[in-house]
């Protein structure tokens, strides 16, 4: 059995896989190095791979206006991102920026589809874990939406006050 990279044992996505499955998976991943400040993929790029962070950190942001992006989240070693690219052809929904020099593992969509064909049990375990992570991220997104609204309300001074409108009802 070929050696299993340490990082694969730490990734939540693969935590249900046995050693044999991990050993089979390892050769299918591509290692990539990125320097700080570079962009891994941009919003609206073609979407075709998932990335696992072994070293460094990645900031995912969404374009707001002009040169300004809003930071959505950060990924540290053991985290993964870009998972939507495994399932659909839609362009990237956000930009992944390398914050500090990083070492990433790339899982291409084609390879993922091969796993489905040849190792359906392994694919099912990965998908189950993906769904639970999707749910967790959805909850975080809801919180972010609420925080963004609160930010807007505080920044613009809006407050739901008591009745302050003026009127005269002659009786």
């Amino acid at each position: 059995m070929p050696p299993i990279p340490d990082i694969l044992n730490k990734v939540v996505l693969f935590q249900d896989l046995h050693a044999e499955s991990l050993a089979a998976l390892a050769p299918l991943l591509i290692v990539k190095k990125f320097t700080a400040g570079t962009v891994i993929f941009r919003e609206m790029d073609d979407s075709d791979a998932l990335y696992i962070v072994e070293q460094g950190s990645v900031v995912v942001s969404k374009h707001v206006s002009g040169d300004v992006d809003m930071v959505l989240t950060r990924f540290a070693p053991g985290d993964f991102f870009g998972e939507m690219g495994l399932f659909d052809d839609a362009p990237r929904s956000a930009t992944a920026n390398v914050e500090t020099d990083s070492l990433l593992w790339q899982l291409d969509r084609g390879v993922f589809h091969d796993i489905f064909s040849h190792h359906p049990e392994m694919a099912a375990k990965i998908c189950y874990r993906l769904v639970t992570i999707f749910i967790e991220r959805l909850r975080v997104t809801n919180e972010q939406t609420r925080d963004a609204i609160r930010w807007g309300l505080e920044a613009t001074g809006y407050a739901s006050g008591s009745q302050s409108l003026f009127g005269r009802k002659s009786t």
Partner: protein
Amino acid sequence: MAEPAKLQLLTRKPGEAGFQIHEIESSQAYFGYRPQRVPNEAWEMTAQPRSPDGRRNFIVKNLRRDRYLLIDGQEAFLWELFDGSHSLEEIARTFHHRFGAFDFAIIRKLLAKLYQAGLLVERENLALQQTLARSQAKFWAMGLTNAAKCWRRLSFTVPHADRFCGTLYRYGGFLLFNPVTFGLTVIITLLAGAAALHLSPQAKQFTQALAAKPWLSTGAMLASLLAVAMMHVTVHALACKAYGRRVREIGFFLLQGVLPTFYADVTDIFMSTRRARVIVDLAGPLVELFCGSLAFLAAYQASPGVGQALLFGVGVLLWEGALINLYPFNFLELDGYNIVADLLAMPTLRQQALVLAPQLHRRLLHPSALTKSEWIQIAYLLLCSVSVLIYLIAHLDFLRGLLPSWK
């Protein structure tokens, strides 16, 4: 208090590799926020007469949403600066130069009022914010809200009130607003006063006659009160039309949440003169005075019996109604109160007085620190309290007269 909300922004400089991340607190952004009022064609502002303190209030009307806002001189100054080009930081500095002091609470309060009146450029997330606020409500607050909703169900409004009143005014309503009609009302009232004096020695017999037929007397009195109350608000509305202003609503509601009554929303008269407002206020009670006078004159002509007693009773009831309506010191915002508030140029006198009431004992320890307006509020509170007490005592006596078993 919760920490200010934060946003992380990622920016890139053109031509440079890499990026910067900035954390912006909502409070920081607040200083940079540039409030923008709705376009000029969407609002109208009218200066109100000066109050005893020499202060001037303004009414801002949202022409698109038909909402009105009462703002003071300092707020009017801020309103002028809310043109979308000045940040709150700049506005605060300008305000400080002008008035010598500044408190951000003034801006916060004004912004909240303007959002509510729809006078600032719309925020898309308003509806969502309200939904969130609702979901966080406590059970007792929800209970109170539900109770208030039940009360509100009693309320109704007449559709197309302005069109209805405009038509009514054109087809005869205008006749009510001329010196001849007023002179006629005065003559009839004087004659009715003489008739009432002539009949007053028989008041005890009238009371006994009415007490002998309680259903008939109660029904007749309620019916006449109802009919006259409807005429009363219609005449308010017609007076508003006489000055070319809009009648926003006519309907039925609970005045100050307790007193079921008909109403005409004549807020638009604030875009006219003080004289116009006083005339609109006076027009309503004159209906009770006129109808009550007719009842007294009819009672004078009627032969003795239940009919005469009923007419006399209706006359007393309507004149009393006119008096209550015109009497300003009863804690209710009736016509007399509106007239006094207008003459004093303190359109929120009652609300201000009620805010002052809980701190009165503390404030009276330093009377020299009280402003002229606050003395007026204290006088209002005092007169209201005494008047309500006298009214209750007088009516306990009246009830005793109606129910012989109390003697």
